[in-house]
């Protein structure tokens, strides 16, 4: 992380931004010196104290805390049927959500009372998708939606896709029901915002594997548990972004409304909500994406849909079939993403395109509704419109193609990839990991607190100290340090990729247009799909886990940096060009330094995304916290340790989030 953050500073000349320019430069130099000093002292003490007080814990060993977690879990299970909390509270919630999901499923995916097919067949769903996309967005996304949904049918995955859609929509619906009001509240009240933020962090960074088993205790096996698991992960972005939207309404506008005598309620309903609508829709978009990311994990507790296809195919290492299903998830995600993005942008485009179109819009919408109704009726009545026709030839050729590509890569690239892996592991990862795991815990802790204070200020230092304390308390300190080493290495690589591709994308719209769908795909393709080929290329090693994390995390970094580079004022770039800068100088001396805020934000997000892949890494040889969580999910007696490892991941996430955010604020201030 430090490496990535120093990057822009190395090449930077202090900007003559004002009278305090030189002072800032002096402070920055001293800050770098302090960081270097901390690192030197750490390494020196490590050489002396190596191997002492490392808080090492063997894979099968437990601490008292872990046993206590186990007992608590067991007693909940044993008392489930007699506890009034279950009888009257959780059971009711389960009933409501089950009813909702079953209703949507019977509508589009599952056979319904006596009928062999759902109420609305493929033609009806495609019609509705096209019509709704057109109504809330524009005709281009409507075409995309129609093409995308038809493609899923051609893949031979119609019913699975509809099951996934039903579950995702239900989860998003219920999530928004809570998230938007909570987001508005957090937007209006600083105090509530401060209270809710740690909970949101927790919901987003706690690995799902940790609460999947307890969830089925509370809400039983079935759609309710899957929906709630999805909601827990998907609701926070909507809450955060709604709050952000309310906060970014210009104060003058609110004051103007106040001075006109608007009540609190009026200014909320008439000013704040309408003005933040666009950003709130982006929150909905993020919630949908997060919900789709849960598809494969929810399949582990019997959630129907594409996730099951992926998981089952992987039991026999059938990469082709898994890829086909993964591709359907990607297509669904891209359709939903583009439609919601178009919806958030629509109002402005409509306003600009003039009134003639507006006059025709309502009759056209009416006609569209009629056509859709007819399609729905037909798909309800006739078999050809209800059941997707054809033999799924597209799906099997996709599967075959993916198989061929994987086999080719495995046969031809593995020599190369193994060398790369060994160089990186022995040269970078192993020494760094040894430094972290073999130093006494208090030394690493002190170094982390010191770095936090220097980079993020005193409050970040205090947070780091609390997190270090709690990490020791979880009893998995040594595993946490192993995971930390891999995480930092992965983040450095993510940032390297992010800078290269982000700058390239930021400087060329064409590159952006070509790369962006690939980045989207990398973000929503279930990691389980590409783990098998990665295992073949790199073996069951920590490096495989790092590569998987890079695939998942670098798109975010690339996108943020590209946006940052693009946000550099055109006038500045032109001035530099006319002053005789070549492209290299332009990038290193103007665009990257001016996108410094974006770089720190990208580091922050890259790190959080890498951390969210720790558990997936545990499945392919990363060991440490990821393996603890996975094993805790699989073996009763390790449940408590898995929970503790999950908490450790949350603590690492919170610590680095606070430090990088504080650093970002400092840098952009």
């Amino acid at each position, binding site marked *: 992380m430090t490496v990535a953050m120093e990057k822009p500073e190395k090449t930077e000349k202090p900007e003559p931004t004002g009278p305090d320019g030189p002072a800032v430069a002096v402070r920055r130099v001293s800050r770098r010196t302090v960081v270097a000093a901390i690192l030197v002292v750490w390494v020196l003490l490590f050489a002396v104290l190596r191997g002492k007080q490392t808080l090492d814990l063997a*894979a099968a060993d437990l601490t008292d805390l872990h046993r206590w977690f186990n007992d608590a879990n067991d007693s909940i299970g044993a008392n489930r049927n007699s506890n009034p909390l279950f009888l009257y509270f959780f059971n009711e919630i389960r009933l409501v959500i089950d009813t909702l999901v079953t209703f949507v499923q019977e509508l589009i995916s599952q056979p319904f009372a006596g009928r062999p097919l759902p109420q609305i067949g493929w033609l009806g769903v495609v019609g509705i998708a096209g019509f709704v996309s057109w109504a809330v967005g524009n005709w281009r996304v409507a075409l995309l939606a129609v093409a995308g949904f038809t493609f899923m049918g051609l893949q031979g995955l119609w019913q699975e896709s509809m099951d996934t859609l039903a579950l995702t929509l239900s989860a998003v619906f219920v999530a928004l029901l809570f998230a938007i009001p909570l987001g508005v509240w957090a937007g209006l009240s600083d105090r509530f915002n401060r209270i809710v933020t740690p909970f949101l962090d927790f919901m987003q960074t706690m690995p799902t594997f940790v609460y999947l088993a307890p969830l*089925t205790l509370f809400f039983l096996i079935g759609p309710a548990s899957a929906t709630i698991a999805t909601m827990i992960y998907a609701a926070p972005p909507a809450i955060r972004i709604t709050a952000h939207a309310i906060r970014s309404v210009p104060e003058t506008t609110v004051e103007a409304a106040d001075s006109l005598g608007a009540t609190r309620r009026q200014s909320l309903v008439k000013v704040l909500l309408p003005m933040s609508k666009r950003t709130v829709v982006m929150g909905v978009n993020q919630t949908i994406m997060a919900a789709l990311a849960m598809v494969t994990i929810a399949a582990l*507790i019997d959630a129907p849909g594409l996730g099951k296809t992926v998981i089952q195919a992987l039991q026999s290492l059938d990469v082709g079939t898994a890829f086909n299903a993964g591709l359907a998830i990607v297509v669904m995600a891209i359709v939903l993403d583009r439609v919601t993005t178009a919806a958030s942008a629509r109002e402005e485009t409509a306003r600009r395109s003039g009134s003639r179109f507006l006059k025709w819009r309502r009759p056209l919408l009416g006609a569209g509704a009629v056509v859709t109704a007819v399609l729905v009726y037909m798909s309800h009545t006739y078999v050809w419109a209800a059941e997707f026709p054809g033999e799924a030839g597209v799906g099997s050729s996709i599967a075959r193609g993916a198989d061929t590509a994987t086999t080719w890569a495995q046969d031809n690239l593995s020599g190369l990839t193994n060398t790369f892996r060994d160089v990186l592991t022995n040269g970078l990862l192993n020494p760094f990991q040894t430094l972290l795991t073999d130093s006494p815990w208090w030394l690493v802790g002190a170094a982390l607190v010191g770095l936090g204070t220097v980079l993020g200020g005193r409050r970040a230092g205090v947070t780091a100290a609390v997190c270090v304390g709690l990490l020791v308390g979880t009893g998995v300190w040594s595993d946490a340090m192993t995971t930390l080493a891999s995480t930092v290495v992965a983040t450095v690589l993510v940032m390297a990729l992010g800078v290269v591709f982000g700058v390239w994308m930021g400087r060329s719209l064409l590159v952006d247009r070509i790369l962006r769908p690939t980045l989207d795909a990398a973000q929503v393709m279930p990691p389980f799909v590409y783990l098998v080929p990665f295992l*073949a290329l790199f073996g*069951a*090693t920590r490096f495989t886990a790092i590569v998987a994390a890079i695939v998942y995390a670098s798109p975010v970094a690339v996108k943020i940096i590209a946006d940052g580079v693009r946000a550099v004022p055109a006038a500045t770039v032109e001035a530099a060009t006319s002053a005789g800068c070549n492209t290299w100088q332009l990038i290193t001396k103007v665009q990257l330094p001016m996108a410094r805020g974006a770089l720190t934000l990208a580091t922050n997000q890259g790190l959080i995304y890498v951390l969210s892949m720790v558990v997936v890494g545990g499945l392919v*040889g990363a060991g440490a916290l990821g393996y603890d969580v996975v094993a805790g999910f699989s073996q009763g007696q390790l449940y408590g340790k898995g929970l503790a490892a999950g908490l450790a991941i949350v603590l690492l996430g919170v610590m680095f989030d606070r430090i990088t955010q504080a650093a970002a604020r400092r840098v952009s201030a």
Partner: protein
Amino acid sequence: MAGQARQWRTAAAGIAVLGLGLTACGGAKVGDSSSDAGGSGSSGKCGTFNLAVNPWVGYEANAAVLAYVAEQDLGCKVSQKDLKEEIAWQGFGTGEVDAVVENWGHDDLKKKYITDQKTAVDAGPTGNEGLIGWYVPPWLAKAHPDITDWKNLNKYADKFRTSESGGKGQLLDGDPSFVTNDAALVKNLKLDFKVVYAGSETALIQAFRKAEKDKQWVIGYFYEPQWFMSEVPLVKVKLPEYKTGCDADTEKVACDYPVYKLDKIVSAKFAKSGSPAYDLVKNFTWTNEDQNTVAKYIAVDKMTPEAAAKKWVEANRAKVEAWIK
């Protein structure tokens, strides 16, 4: 107002015309054909049979055959639920799971759910015998036949070194679903190896597959019956013989894993329900070879579980009759 009314009238007419036209050329209607209604017409007294499906192919083979017989011969409505073991057992108490049909030991779960909570009961062995242990790829066993005895492992330790094993030989462990004593074993047998946690069955299979193909040195934890054995017949390494009680203290284990008699567990409620599906589960037993056949249909020949079960049941009618008589 008038304009709007006209609009509505046009719309209504449009629907009528479209509807009429389409009805004329429509084709088969949903629900008309009886072939759509599912194979089993007679839903006897069996009712719904909730069958847990744990995530490995061998289990899937058991479940597919049981589900096929229950549906076709007993007229049950079988609800198959894809669940990890822990969650499936948890489902006995909540009434959402009736049967687990391939259980590997799991004494901790037996104690918790059969002895303590009394929500589950044992329904006898499946006839399959489960082996757990250390395996090497066939080429290695052929090239160095003495490697299949643990006493010779230290001789080869440096050949098994990887980027993960910190200078020692790598013992690839860790499907997280199974209890392993491997860390203790390595210590107590004084082997110069380090346990590296692969983390999933997928990772283990991929490692062995590659080792056989590229003649790499890999030793790791594995188990049979397993469909992968029909692709690459791994060779088991002999560890000190298992004797009852030698694994009692997990710190001091220095012996092989026991042979697991795989068994079936059902919920207490299901056992008392008098459902013919319970008798089916109770009587179900077959050989490792049978399971491997069905597992191979699923994993290697890529048949759906239903098709695989159908193929096996049709070829082995006599065995099936013994379960449902």
